[in-house]
């Protein structure tokens, strides 16, 4: 029951996420068929630049830099990382010839998904937990009974709490594969 209500709240985000991936791949196919393959290359560069600049927030958070308001920088981080990821996804499309860039894209998608979890889904789960607890307390259940009822929801919320555990290492894995991809392109491609 509790799990179902959480799923209902989570579903729109998963749906939007899948739609965005599909849309990006469709745009890639469209641009290829429209003879604009060259544009895809530049979308990759633009996406990478946006993602690199989105890390200003990470530097501010770790006090490596001092300027800027953390909240504003977080919003910029989200916006730039989202836009950059979308551009990179359009750049990559549905092409599975080379493993390294594929791994980079896969890691990027997981990073974005964990970011969404941190920003939206965790909040949703916490709110559900709070609402349900209030309902149960209104029914005059004992604290033990309430905890028992909320066990599944608490577990979900706890798991979601761990989004950072995935977000940051995966970002670095994404960075490693993306860097290898960029290096090999610079070495082998003719600009």
């Amino acid at each position, binding site marked *: 029951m509790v799990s179902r209500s959480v799923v209902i709240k989570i579903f729109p985000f998963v749906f939007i996420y899948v739609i965005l991936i599909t849309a990006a791949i469709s745009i890639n196919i469209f641009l290829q068929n429209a003879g604009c393959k060259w544009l895809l290359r530049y979308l990759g560069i633009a996406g990478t630049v946006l993602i690199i600049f989105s890390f200003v927030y990470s530097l501010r958070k770790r006090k490596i830099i001092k300027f800027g308001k953390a909240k504003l920088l977080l919003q910029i981080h989200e916006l730039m990382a989202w836009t950059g990821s979308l551009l990179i996804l359009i750049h990559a499309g549905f*092409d599975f*010839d*080379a*493993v*390294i*860039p594929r*791994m980079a894209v896969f*890691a990027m998608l997981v990073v974005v998904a964990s970011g969404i979890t941190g920003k939206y889904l965790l909040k949703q789960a916490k709110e559900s937990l709070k609402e349900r607890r209030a309902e149960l307390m209104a029914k005059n259940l004992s604290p033990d009974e309430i905890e028992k009822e909320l066990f599944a929801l608490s577990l979900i919320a706890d798991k979601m709490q761990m989004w950072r555990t995935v977000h*940051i*290492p*995966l970002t*670095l*894995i994404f*960075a*490693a*594969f993306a*860097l*290898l*991809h960029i290096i*090999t392109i*610079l*070495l*082998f*491609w*003719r*600009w």
Partner: protein
Amino acid sequence: MVKHTVLISFLSAFAIGLIGILMFPYYTINPGVVIEDHTMLKNDCLFCHSLGKGVQTEKCIKCHKPTEIGLRLVNGMDRVDLNNKSNLLHQSIIDIQCFDCHTEHNGLSRENATLKFRHDILTVELQSECMKCHQLQKPLDDIHTYLVLNCSECHSNKSWVPSNFKHELLGERINGCKSCHESKRPADVLHKSLGNSVQCVQCHNTNSWKPSTFDHSNNFRFDNNHPSDCTNCHKLDKSFETYTCYNCHEHNPARIEKKHLKEGIRNFGNCVECHRSGEKDDAINSDDEKRL
């Protein structure tokens, strides 16, 4: 601790990726399938690529000598299916690189390795000698047999159609429309009834069939009492070159004769010679000659 985990993630991924690239470059970094003839080179990137410079023509022509393309295989054996056109083309290329026309990692088929051909890569001499490559494409119709001109007089080097044919090129044959356009002659009564003495250029020009320059008011102007219904004056079973005005109660032959004779006009058989409209006072050529 967290910092170490993050650093380890980065370094591990980088190391694994790097080992993968060094051991299996074709599976880790190749952007697409190479053509079938290059399959044996698929893990030897540097056979074609130069680090930092991409693919260079110097590496291609080590195997694909421009003087032998189309005539010999890269192993030096003569080709069974000689392609003199390809040989001529590659020998006539001005200073460009192979990758301007060819690509790789685009699928197994050799067809996929050729991008769109551009004529401007050829020497000016060959560009002006279309027939050296396109002899088999020349149509066998009358016009292409008659005209011994350079193709570029009518065609561009982007595509054969649309052509920019100018009728002036036909010289003295410019009025022989029917030799080319007979099949396009409209099947209407007007065009069917026109005799062989009538030339297309009397109503049409060489820029386009429509609009035609035919103006009925040069012969007779229509009005409410004389509408543009052909059969009012022209008998369907006869040519449009003939007509009659005696088809209504107003133009009774006996009355017309009487009126003209009263005016001293005896030669009144061809009405429109004097009457170019239904206006009674609009008659022309009512000179003495008609009164004879």
